[in-house]
């Protein structure tokens, strides 16, 4: 089947992308090494990498990548045989070739084929002094038959350990089976005694002893199984732990390229590449780390001449170190021995952007002033480079770190350098969550983002510019009800506005909002499970967790919530939740085309639409699910529009419901009949355009 072929090809390409990334990264790392000190074994390594990548590219018909790799392979082969010697400029060409491969891998089709041809001839020029080496005939590497999707490398020892633990579970299965059998037998024997005319006291004592033994064994099982499950879980978490080196290896090239662009000199020193961190944290921290390193080169490191004038070595040192602290935390430090950050400049920039008043700024001590750097909009550089200079970078770094439950700090000394420290949790898997209730449903808010919980007298809620606010420690905090933010109707069980409102103050970055909830239940450890495709990303939802009771509870995405909350406008105090609810209209129409058409029109106008196929269907739906209005056709099987209207008017609960009849019957009689049965509006299809209907609904509903 064609679709299957496509799917297969897609998964094949995904596997190739994963494999290709490993190869070009290895080539790039090898080139950096060779630049420092040419070693034959490294030449051999990059040669092999280029060769393998060429084979893989050929297998999936990526001819452009194949072409570049072919050229690289020949160049490396020539170098290996000492047919040519690299000069510093050769490395630039080779690095550019690696970059091109990366682009071809990551965004195939977006590269001008001319660049590939140009690159090929550039590489060939490198070894022009010698005849081109023939492509060596090796056995082509076999494409691994993996399915699509992300893959990670796991040390075999970890898998072995996990397999052993999983095997131990067999013992649990057998034991539980045995216990179940024992209990069955006990029950049979006990039943026998119950049925006997005179129970045998001796036998009863035997049974009691058996029961005691069994209960003791069960206690023991409980203990052992608990430990085994914990171990297995811990072992599984370990699979997601990757050494930091996997993401630190992009940095040497980054520093090299940045320095070349800016005519600066810097050496990158990396410590702690072996520290293992949860893969998901690593991925989240990649961009912030790149940003910090870029900052070092852009703002920290001075030009060599300037450094010489200051009596510093011309070559600056940028250090990236990863250290494990307290067993479950890790510190990521990025430092340079450059110019440092001028506190006065930060204050000036913050004042300029209106983030603090000039008077306040003067009062700030150094740490407080430096903290201003993390506010968005504050940048001390006048020049905008790729990322840094726009004043957004550090705000993003802080937001990312805080989303992961981490913290950011900065130290600086004028003329000596700057150090950024990010303290992160080692693993994401479990965290403390605060369980709250909204619209009758339970949700988890990560406790790190919960500043406090409390309750406020409803009478003390003040409306400022149509938004509710509460006073807290003398400050005004915006108040938003959680249910409408999550697009849920307010809990109908709570019809009367209570005297007290419970709230949770949620913070992230610079934002802080109090969310009104029905109840705050408790705080507890939760194990995060992310939602998977097809629910790739649901707004306001970060994932889910399974409580001890087996119930599934959703974990809220704090960053999204704060964003969504600002969009929910509360119009009138006293009816806060209803203002954002969309009106529900029931469309009754037997023709599927007209039904879809009406549904579409009404939905575009902002209504929620339910549909019914005829009057009878409509009536049964109205009895179970209330709506705000009915739009109905007249001629329908089973129960027509006139009769439906009549029945609605006759029903005590539905009598007031607005009914709009839409029909092809345009005679005076029909119109009168419509009025007679109690329709609120009668729209003839021949004159039917959207505005008529929408206008009628607007007036009625």
């Amino acid at each position: 089947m064609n679709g299957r072929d496509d799917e297969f090809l897609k998964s094949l390409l995904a596997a190739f992308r994963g494999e290709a990334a490993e190869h070009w990264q290895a080539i790039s790392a090898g080139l950096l090494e060779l630049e420092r000190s040419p070693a034959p074994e490294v030449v051999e390594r990059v040669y092999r990498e280029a060769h393998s990548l060429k084979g893989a590219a050929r297998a999936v018909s990526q001819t452009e990548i194949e072409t570049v790799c072919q050229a690289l392979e020949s160049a490396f082969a020539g170098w290996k045989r000492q047919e040519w010697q690299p000069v510093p400029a050769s490395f630039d060409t080779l690095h550019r070739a690696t970059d091109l491969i990366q682009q071809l891998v990551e965004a195939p089709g977006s590269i001008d084929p001319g660049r590939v041809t140009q690159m090929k001839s550039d590489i060939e020029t490198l070894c022009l002094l010698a005849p081109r080496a023939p492509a060596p005939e090796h056995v082509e590497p076999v494409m691994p038959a993996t399915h699509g999707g992300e893959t990670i490398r796991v040390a075999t020892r970890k898998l072995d350990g996990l397999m052993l633990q999983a095997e131990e579970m067999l013992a649990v299965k057998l034991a539980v089976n045995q216990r179940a059998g024992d209990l069955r037998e006990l029950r049979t024997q006990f039943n026998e005694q119950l049925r006997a005319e005179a129970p045998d006291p001796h036998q009863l004592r035997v049974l009691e002893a058996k029961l005691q033994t069994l209960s003791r064994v069960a206690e023991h099982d409980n203990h052992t199984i608990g430990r085994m499950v914990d171990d297995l879980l811990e072992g599984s978490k370990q699979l997601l732990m990757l050494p930091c080196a996997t993401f630190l290896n992009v940095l040497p090239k980054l520093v090299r390229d940045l320095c070349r662009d800016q005519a600066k000199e810097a050496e990158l020193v990396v410590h702690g590449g072996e520290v293992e961190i949860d893969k998901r944290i690593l991925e989240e921290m990649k961009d912030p780390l790149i940003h910090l390193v870029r900052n070092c080169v852009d703002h920290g490191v001075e030009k060599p001449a300037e450094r010489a004038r200051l009596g510093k070595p011309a070559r600056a040192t940028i250090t990236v170190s990863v250290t494990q602290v307290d067993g479950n935390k890790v510190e990521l430090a990025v430092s340079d021995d450059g110019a440092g950050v001028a506190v006065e400049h930060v204050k000036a920039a913050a004042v300029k952007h209106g983030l603090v008043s000039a008077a306040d700024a003067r009062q700030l001590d150094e740490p407080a002033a430096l903290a201003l750097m993390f506010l968005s909009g504050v940048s001390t550089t006048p020049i905008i480079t790729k990322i840094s200079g726009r004043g957004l970078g550090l705000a993003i770094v802080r937001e990312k770190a805080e989303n992961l439950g981490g913290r950011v700090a900065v130290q600086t000394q004028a003329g000596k350098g700057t150090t950024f420290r990010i303290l992160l949790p080692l693993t994401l898997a479990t965290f403390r969550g605060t369980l709250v209730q909204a619209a009758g449903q339970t949700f988890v808010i990560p406790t790190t983002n919960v500043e406090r919980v409390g309750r406020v007298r409803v009478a003390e809620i003040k409306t400022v510019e149509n938004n509710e606010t509460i006073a807290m420690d003398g400050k005004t905090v915006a108040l938003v009800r959680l249910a409408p933010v999550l697009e849920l109707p307010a809990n109908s069980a709570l019809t009367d506005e209570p005297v007290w409102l419970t709230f949770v103050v949620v913070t992230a970055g610079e934002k802080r909002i109090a969310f009104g909830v029905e109840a705050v239940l408790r705080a507890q450890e939760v194990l995060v499970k992310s939602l998977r495709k097809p629910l790739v990303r649901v707004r306001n939802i970060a994932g889910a967790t399974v409580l001890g009771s087996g119930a599934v509870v959703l974990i809220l995405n704090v960053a999204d919530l704060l964003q969504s909350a600002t969009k929910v406008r509360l119009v009138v105090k006293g009816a806060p939740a209803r203002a954002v609810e969309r009106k529900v209209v029931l469309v009754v129409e037997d023709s599927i085309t007209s039904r879809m058409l009406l549904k579409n029109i009404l939905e575009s106008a902002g209504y929620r639409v339910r549909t019914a196929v005829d009057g009878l269907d409509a009536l049964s739906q109205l009895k179970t699910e209330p709506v705000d209005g009915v739009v109905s056709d007249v001629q329908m099987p089973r129960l027509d529009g006139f009769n439906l209207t009549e029945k609605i008017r006759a029903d005590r609960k539905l009598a007031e419901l607005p009914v709009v009849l839409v029909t092809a019957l345009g005679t005076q009689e029909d119109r009168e009949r419509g009025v007679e049965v109690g329709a609120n509006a009668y729209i003839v299809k021949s004159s039917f355009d959207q505005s008529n209907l929408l206008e009628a609904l607007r007036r009625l509903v």
Partner: protein
Amino acid sequence: MTEDQQRILKARAQALAQEPVAQATEAMIEVVEFSLATERYAIEISFVREVFPFKELTPVPCTPPFYTGIVNVRGRLIPVVDLKKFFDLPANGLQDLHKVIILHSAEMDLGILADDVGGVRSVSVSQLQAALPTLSGIGQEYLRGVTGDRLVVLDAERILGDPKIVVHEEIEK
């Protein structure tokens, strides 16, 4: 009986005798039958991972209305879709939903709600006829076809591959 008649009957008998061979070469698909409100549907068994009786379903806010929620299937959280809403069918008749049929493809697992799940049967592909829209109300694109006895065979591949089933939303800034 005339000779002609006898000859015809004989030919027929021979044709009938051939049938098993003919049937073996005919393309058959195995389907799982299930009911939703008053209607009977079926879905190809190769897409069915399992049938799961559920007690609790957690609604997920901010998803399209056809998503009923997620269920916990032995630690895996599986999103569940109400096909009636997915197909924009009116919800007529009382529904007694308590089973989830878990469909799978290389990319995802997806549950669909069912009132009751019947047995497995074989359906001959050639006997599937294009469904009349009035019969099922479901768009042609989601159907494999309808059998002679009005069993509506859904196209699981199309449902799982429908872009509208995927929720991938960022908050608008």
